[in-house]
């Protein structure tokens, strides 16, 4: 057992209101620069939809992630030798058109325009060339199902859904969508790291953040193509790759990453997960239907004395172990088993998790009136026994979060529903009856767990949502520099301007 620590985030999708505050917070801090205008390290997609960059999940086109062939795991992008031959031109690299051309408006014209009979206008101009452009698309062009005939219809996750279900999803009374906020998943088996010919991308040992060393980056761009989530971006101005850094400077000073901190719906949780690095090769290399079980197996119980001993053996401090014990991520991922990795079939072993959304119940038309497609008598137990009455097909969620396995999604949704039913009895009816207890038991939860889940979902305080250990940066500086020398310096000393080379 090789115990290591990871900072993980959990997204509670039921709480996401799609306000894009996370995206804007991230953009303002990190990507509001020349060459980075088109990047959204954090973006929020409407699902069903094609996402950003368009159709990023279509790996037949973009060739991201890993594939298992004859029991061996290989990059879908290239073999090592192929990688070197593709240095000069990488056919799988997304082009700017796959994202969008960043634009602004020619505001100067509003002030400098000569006197005319008509009001001057601010024409849209490209942020790359400065020339006037016709804006054809942008980030979230398909927000809230806008243009769903082009976007939602071509969602790769509709794969495997019967044609009639697909068509029903376009009917007004069945329309449904949810939001999917995405950042870099800081994978345990990152394809970007494996694809980089220069070896410029690495995973930080202490918290698992995947970073690009821009001093080593030579713009071969393999990382951009290899990441199945398309969360590494190429800065066309500096000629270096960039990606989400999980706001590590904030985490090191005890603050949550900007996206999580600014979240209006408070959907994001963060905490330490302990995992067994020895199990990664196995967990990444099992058949699709065993991926989630193997992934959960790899996450270790921070209360287990054997795990604690092994963690200490690996130099993990008491405060990190304690932090792992209080981690909300551990509760959602391992204890309650309701948080799932996004697209586990890409086999990069993501460390950011999603709690799938409960969707509204299907309505049917009866004498031209709409009514919920559920029996009146067990109204309260709505979907519990009839998850298929939900508007969002289970198969769709399964394609997103469990490599197509509907059983996993059903288990999670039943847990969420059971807690809802139980708490409604408790707070609305004033007492819990045997039938809601039975529902809870059927979903595999105890009453204590249900109350914990309810509290963590609806009423968590800031310090319960974000549990950060002390990074002890002062000690790591000691390891590299004489503290007395460092005393006279500011920050990390002199760092060169990130200026494009000639």
């Amino acid at each position, binding site marked *: 057992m090789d115990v290591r620590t990871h900072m993980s985030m959990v997204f509670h999708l039921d709480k996401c209101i799609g306000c894009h505050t996370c995206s804007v917070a991230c953009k303002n801090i990190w990507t509001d620069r020349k060459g980075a205008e088109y990047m959204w390290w954090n973006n929020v997609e409407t699902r069903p939809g094609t996402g950003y960059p368009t159709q990023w999940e279509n790996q037949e086109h973009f060739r991201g992630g890993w594939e298992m062939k004859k029991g061996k795991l290989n990059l879908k992008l290239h073999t*090592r*030798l192929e*990688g*070197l031959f593709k*240095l*000069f*031109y*990488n056919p799988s*690299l*997304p*082009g*700017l058109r796959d994202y969008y051309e960043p634009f602004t408006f020619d505001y100067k014209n509003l002030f400098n325009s000569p006197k005319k009979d008509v009001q001057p206008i601010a024409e849209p101009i490209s942020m*790359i*060339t*400065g*020339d006037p452009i016709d804006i054809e698309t942008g980030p979230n062009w398909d927000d809230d199902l806008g243009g769903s005939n082009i976007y939602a219809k071509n969602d790769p996750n509709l794969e495997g859904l019967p044609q009639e279900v697909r068509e029903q999803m376009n009917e007004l009374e069945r329309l449904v969508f949810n939001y999917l906020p995405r950042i870099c998943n800081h994978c345990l*088996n*990152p394809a970007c*790291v*494996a694809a*980089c*010919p*220069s*070896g410029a*991308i*690495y*995973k*930080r*040992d*202490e918290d698992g953040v995947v970073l690009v060393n*821009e*001093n*080593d*980056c*030579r*713009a*071969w*761009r393999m990382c951009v193509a290899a990441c199945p989530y398309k969360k590494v971006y*190429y800065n*066309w*101005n*500096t*000629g*270096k790759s960039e990606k989400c850094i999980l706001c590590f400077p904030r985490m090191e000073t005890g603050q949550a990453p900007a996206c999580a901190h600014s979240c209006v719906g408070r959907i994001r949780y963060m905490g330490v997960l302990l995992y067994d690095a020895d199990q990664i090769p196995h967990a990444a290399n099992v058949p699709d239907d065993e991926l989630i079980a193997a992934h959960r197996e790899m996450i270790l119980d921070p209360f287990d004395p054997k795990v604690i001993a092994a963690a200490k*053996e*690996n*130099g993990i401090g008491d405060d990190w172990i304690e932090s792992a014990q209080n981690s909300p991520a551990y509760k959602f991922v391992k204890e309650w088993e309701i948080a799932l990795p996004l697209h586990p079939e890409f086999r990069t072993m993501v460390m950011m998790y999603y709690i799938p959304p409960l969707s509204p119940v299907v309505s049917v038309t009866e004498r031209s009136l709409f009514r919920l497609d559920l029996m009146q008598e067990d109204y309260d137990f709505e979907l519990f026994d009839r998850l298929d009455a939900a508007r969002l097909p289970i198969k769709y969620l399964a394609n997103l979060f469990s490599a197509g396995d509907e059983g996993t999604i059903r288990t999670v949704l039943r847990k969420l529903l059971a807690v809802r039913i139980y708490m409604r009895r408790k707070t609305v009816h004033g007492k819990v009856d045997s039938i809601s207890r039975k529902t809870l038991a059927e979903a595999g939860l105890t009453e204590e767990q249900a109350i914990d889940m309810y509290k963590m979902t609806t009423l968590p305080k800031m310090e319960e949502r974000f549990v950060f250990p002390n990074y002890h*940066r002062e*000690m*790591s500086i000691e*390891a590299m520099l004489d503290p007395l020398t460092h005393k006279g310096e500011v920050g990390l000393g002199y760092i*060169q301007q*990130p*200026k*494009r*080379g*000639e």
Partner: protein
Amino acid sequence: MDWNLFFFVVFPYISLTLFVVVTTYRLIYRPFTQSSLSSQLLERRQLYWGSIPFHHGVVWILLLHLLALVFPKALLLWNAVPLRLYLLEISGFALGLWALVGVVVLLWRRITVPYIQAVTTRMDIVVLILTLVSMITGVLTASLYRFGSTWFTGVFTPYLWSVFLFQPRPELVISLPWIIQLHLINNFALLAIFPFSRLVHILSWPLDYLIRPWQLVVGVRDRKATK
């Protein structure tokens, strides 16, 4: 002023000094500025027709030049059989033409595509023009003054070694046709601007990618050492 002395003794030493000193400085102290500065994100169709022919052509051409410089005898032995000589000459000529086509496409792309103009510096144009001159004079030399792979070893190999060993013998190249002389001078010019241009990316050979482990983990502190 003796132009021959300038072009075949002074200028080579100026460019070699710049190449060695400034490149070393840049590799060590300015690592951020090293990048292939790919523009594939912005424009890919013309890049495909330019970058692939140019790079795959020029890499082999450079290797053949290096071979003639380091192992002249081996090259002469290979050329001793006429069939092998023709094979080498024809493939070298074809590779040169291929690279020439590539560099023309790249220059055209850089001048005409607005997205590429947005990331073009004056040095980029200088590099492309010098490369174009190098390709044209090289291809002309190969077609007008045949069997370069053989006479190179008698002319350029001793001349270049004489320069490297600080006993320059300009007399070896003074009487060459002007196209070949231009080829030589132009390539010393390329060496001179090498450290000041995007050409430094030539020194990035990510060959360790073939053997390194897939995953890289870096800790602020050595975890095993601080146990």
